[in-house]
């Protein structure tokens, strides 16, 4: 089973770092600045079944929040990445979520607040996140630096994708 997942988030929130933490890369990061995306692959075992996640790591752009719609097309799910130390990245993520939902409809997604290793300097408070949780959002606190919650982020989403498929 193969699934396409998009990594979305503002500029320098740590999307690529999370992906690189998760996969063995094949393509150069330069693709980000050239065509705005790199594609990575990770094989997970979910409930005894191998699931291949094709991770489309989209280049973040806070200012315009522009994303290429064509890159999103065909996605089974997506991951929103927020930098805990920059409050505005949450707003960016919320905007992106609305955009994607508008394009692809309601498909599984998860949000990860990155940089949990420096939680004392976070600007994002729990209240805002709690409100999102109440709306049914799946939210992780993780760190690309320490690897915290990275595996669980992807495997949780993979589970949801499979369950949705069944």
């Amino acid at each position, binding site marked *: *089973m*193969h*699934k*396409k997942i998009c990594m979305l988030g503002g500029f320098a929130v740590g999307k690529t770092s999370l992906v690189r933490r998760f996969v063995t890369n*094949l*393509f150069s990061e330069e*693709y980000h600045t050239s*065509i*705005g*995306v*790199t*594609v*990575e*692959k990770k094989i997970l075992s979910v409930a005894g079944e191998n699931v*291949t996640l*094709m991770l*489309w790591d989209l280049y973040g752009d806070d200012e315009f929040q522009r994303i*290429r719609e*064509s*890159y999103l*097309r*065909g*996605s*089974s799910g997506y991951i929103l990445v927020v930098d805990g130390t920059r409050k505005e990245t949450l707003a960016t993520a919320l905007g992106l979520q609305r955009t994607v939902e508008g394009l692809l409809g309601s498909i599984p997604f998860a949000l990860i607040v990155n940089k949990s290793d420096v939680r004392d300097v976070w600007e994002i408070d729990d209240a805002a996140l709690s409100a999102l949780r109440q709306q049914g959002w799946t939210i992780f606190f993780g760190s690309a630096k320490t690897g915290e919650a990275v595996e669980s982020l992807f495997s949780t989403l993979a589970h949801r994708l499979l369950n949705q*498929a069944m």
Partner: protein
Amino acid sequence: MVEPSSKNMPNLTTDMSEDLSELRNLLLAPEQTQLDRLQERLDDPVLRTHEVSRLLPGALTLQKDDPVLTAVLTPHVEQAFFTSLRRSPQAIVDAIAPIMGPAIRQAIRQALQSLTQSLNQTIEHSFSLKGFRWRIEAWTTGRPFAETVLLHTLRYRVEQAFLIHRDTGLLLQHVATETAIVRDQEMVSGMLTAIRNFVHDSFGGQRERDLSSFQVGEFTVWIQQGTNAILAVVIRGTAPETFHDVLQDTLDRIHLTQADALVSFNGDASSFASTQPNLEACLQSQYEAPAQKPSPVLVAIGLLLLLGLLLWGWGSYRDGQRWDTLVDRLKSEPGLVLTTAQDHGGRYDLAGLRDPLATDPTSLIAASGLQADRIHSTWSPYYAMDPQFILSRARALLQPPDTVTLILEGEILVASGTAQEDWAHEARRMAPFVPGVLRYEDKKVQTVSMAHLIESIEHVTIQFASNSSAIDPVEAGKIPALISVLRDLDNLAARSHQQVTVECRGSVDAAGSELTNRILRKTRAQAVCSALGESGVGSATTLTTESASIRRPENQATTRSVGFAVTVHPSGSAKAGHP
């Protein structure tokens, strides 16, 4: 009414029971019969087996999608299959042979074709200069020689084919040649889709403006677009444009056979395994055809034609040279005036004037080496005014005796020497008619008569030493002059139809015996006759020693010499005796 007695009670009970039984029989008999039959069917295993066998196919058909039934039956079917395989393997072999045979043959054929192609290419290039260069390249790059040959003779080879889901960019199927360098095809598929999307968003806008090909070093990637799937192939070298049709046909076929699977694709690509043969058919390759070796017959014909052309060219050149030489020769030949000399492509025309005394042009043509039948020549007669021709003409016409010399002084023919009177007279008459001669002079010609010549001959004596018949060298000096005179006489006699007899008369001195002297006279006469006769004196002249000294020894001078007596008589008459 009488109460029934107690002793009658059993009878009453029995009767009631019978009645009830009868009543039951009357009321439930049909059902009872059915129940009995049912009981019988349930109790009889044979009957039940028959009934189940009738129902089983229908029951299995109804439950064909039931996973439980499949799970229950699978171990039994497997067990039965293995048991059957052990018991009669031949039956299984017979059953699967028609299916496996063609597949195995196909695989072997493909492997052999690949091997043969590699071998052919390798052998063909093993011993050529190019092959030597490639061998060095193989040695320096560490690649096998056969592979180096294949790469160099390759026009194109499709090394990989990707069937990609259009929307998700997920890989549906992938095939590659054995030699292709395959990195993670799923990531390549995703990235290829990303790049295609990027190009489309950046430069396209319409579907037909999608990325259709790009080139990376020696590789070209062709992307064929379909409604729900994309076919991308990696080509080494340059494929013909017609290969696009192959790709489009393949993609169309896949869309046709996999229409539902493509529309409902949810990430499970297993159903696209069946497209593998379609993609493998796209892994085409083409190598440089070996240079067509011309047929030996054609080569031989070509060489013969070339040889013929060379020979014809050489022949033409040689004939041209010979013709020029002949024309030069004819122009320079005395007595010939060439007025026309034309070459009509191997046919020649010659025309001109020819003195009758000039060299025959036919002999010059024959000597030129050109074929005489290719030369048409016309010669008109004329008199050449060259001095040698005028002299030749004069000699031919006047026929002077050897004692006369003719020379040309300007236009004057001058004769000198001795000649008979009648010749001198005739020459004086004829000479002006010789073309080129204006005047004739014969002041230097001394005319002679027969009597004069006879006298001159008889005046000569050849002296001998005592008792010798050998002509000494001093006396021998008189012989040539005597011969010349004898010839003149002979010539005159012949012209006047007369014959001459010259008798050599030997003489001796008074010494010696008569016999000795007679012999000596005879041998001296014979010696002189022989000396004169050796060079010939003419057909009308007879030399003789006959009887001269024998009959009239007393009349001979008493000197040691030989003298001559000449007699002339008409031709055909008997020789006159000496007076």
